[in-house]
């Protein structure tokens, strides 16, 4: 029933807290920052499984999924979410944040995670990244706003441009 078209509808973003840990300080801050920046935010609450996150994302028809992981389980949970999305044929871009070592970030990006924000990243940085990289999804189309400087359609669009600088 939601309005479509016009191109100016609010982006719908899912902020998901996967894993069993209770560290929701970051997820709540990001959810609030994204809401204050004018996006529509759906917060899943804690202890979500990848299955639960993907089901909510599809049901809520979100434009992107952001996951917060601080339990060290990122190498399991991010790929699982991506696999489930692929299985559902849902092309929803995924980004996230947490305590994630540099080498793992590179691997996760190769696997298709759009961006990873690590401790010290500011709310502003996240908001700007979303504005620059996430667009409204038309049904069945790639959700990532294609960047002019990327030469061609890519199954796993790169965001190395920003993240390379962010990692210390």
């Amino acid at each position, binding site marked *: 029933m939601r309005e479509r078209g016009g191109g100016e509808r609010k982006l719908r973003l899912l*902020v998901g807290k996967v*894993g*069993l*840990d*209770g560290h*929701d*300080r970051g*997820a*709540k*801050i990001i*959810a*609030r920052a994204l*809401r204050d920046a004018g996006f529509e*935010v759906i*917060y*899943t*609450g*804690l*202890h979500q*499984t990848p299955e639960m996150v993907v089901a909510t994302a599809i049901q809520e028809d979100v434009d992107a999924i952001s996951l917060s992981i601080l*339990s*060290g*389980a990122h*190498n*399991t*949970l991010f790929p*699982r979410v991506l696999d489930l999305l692929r299985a559902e044929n849902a092309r929803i871009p995924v980004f996230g944040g947490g*305590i994630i*070592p*540099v080498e793992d970030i590179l691997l996760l990006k190769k696997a298709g995670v759009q961006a990873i924000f*690590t*401790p*010290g990243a*500011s*709310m*502003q940085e996240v908001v700007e990244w979303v504005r620059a990289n996430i667009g409204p999804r038309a049904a069945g189309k790639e959700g990532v706003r294609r960047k002019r400087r990327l030469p061609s359609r890519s199954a796993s669009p790169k965001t190395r441009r920003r993240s390379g600088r962010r*990692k*210390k």
Partner: protein
Amino acid sequence: MKRESDLAVRRRTRRDWEEETLRPALARSPERLPEFTTLSSMPIERLYTAEDLEGWDPDEKLGLPGEYPYTRGPYPSMYRGRLWTMRQFSGFGTARDTNRRYRYLLDHGQTGLSVAFDMPTLMGLDPDDPRALGEVGREGVAIATLADMEALFEGIPLAEVSTSMTINAPAAVLLAMYLAVARRQKADWKQLRGTIQNDILKEYIAQKEWIFPPRPSLRIIVDMIAFCTEQVPNWNTISISGYHIREAGSTAAQELAFTLADGIGYVQAAVDAGLDVDSFAPRLSFFFNSHSDFFEEIAKFRAARRIWSKVMRHRFRARDPRSWALRTHAQTAGCSLTAQQPHNNVVRVALQALSAVLGGTQSLHTNSMDETLGLPTEKAVTIALRTQQILAEETGISSTIDPLAGSYFVESLTDRMEREALDLIDAIDRMGGIVPAIEQGFPQREIAEASFRYQQQIERGEKTMVGVNRYTEDAGQAIEVLKIPPSVEGTQVRRLGQVRRTRDPVAHGRALKDLVDAAGTGANLMPPILRAVEAYASLGEICGALKTILGEYHEEKTYF
């Protein structure tokens, strides 16, 4: 004549000084900031003088060490008698991996053990539960059955060490496993020393590892208190924790208030169940954060002791002075550490540890510099332990008791901290106590608000994090990070499978049935939990059985 001029000097007030000395100086060079505040945004005056302590009575506010109101410390000789316990929290991988780390720490002069459990264990789930995927052994040690607990303490005589176990929602099961290991080692339960965190209220507020709803959870805790009071009399039955509340983003005063309100909640529940307050209150202990604002933290520890002694003496009418004295563990603030320039964390930890000691803590965990990146390496954890040893044995701070007492500033800040905490505790009392306050989401909202405010202050540059929003460097500092092999999960699942195949199925089935029956009545749950543990029922099976009767907790999914 001489005497009169002396008096004249003495009578110069702060206002005189502000007019005559300060103002011209400020005209020449103004202060760095329009206002100065603590890390928690509590306003700080330019100068504290005797005028700030007018009418302040040291007998009433301080007392003497080991005496009411315990502001100066819970024990008469404090660190002159015995240094604080240096207790590094650790656990990772399998029970066998962690057992090796414990033996290493004991060999290096650590004086107590502190067990970190992994997330599935904290949530009462077995390693083969779908929700445990990717989490087994990652943030702590994986314990599923008594067999794992036996491996964890192999070669460590439980009658001789003191052990702290950070476990809450399924605490009764883990305590039962510990007692079962002690029984196998032929250790007398009456000699066991240690602490189980067992603080479920702060889980709903901050750390969020819950299983059952608040009220049935409180029932289990009261059962544990009653059981231990009789059978394990030296065991600290709850470590009422502010640490996680602070890590979730609260202010110092909120940490103090919510923690003490939780404490009040436990005491009330036990008293309501018919226990005599003095039979269990001396075994309650606390656990506070030691954050970066040096004096604010010292004031918090001192105010905590003063408030608690009054609560116990006047509100609960405890008669035993041991019920009045607040004993606490402290841990330096994990959330203050930075992934950027991680070596700076060694300095942060040292200063935070210094505040905790000047605040009079009974035991201390110093964080390792690499903990924003992963679990600590052996090298990093050794530096953290050495930090405590340097404080204890090189700096001289342990030579006298409560050295900052009487400081105009520290006493003013202690009083202010007490007032702010009492206001919040009053607000919680008006809601009907901490359980209704939690059910209404009050502390959760207050913390989320404070944490968002602090993040804004960081982003606007109003508060400094060195290496993050000031003095940043482009190049990363390489630092070794501990890797937990993904094979731990498979190992643990196989181990559990083996236990399931080899245990006596009849005894196991009967023990779980008895447990469910007991949960349905008002019986104390500790004895049936012990029997289930000794029949090698797994943590997930025991918690699952209890859930069928006690229900499950679900949070309200709001972020503001």
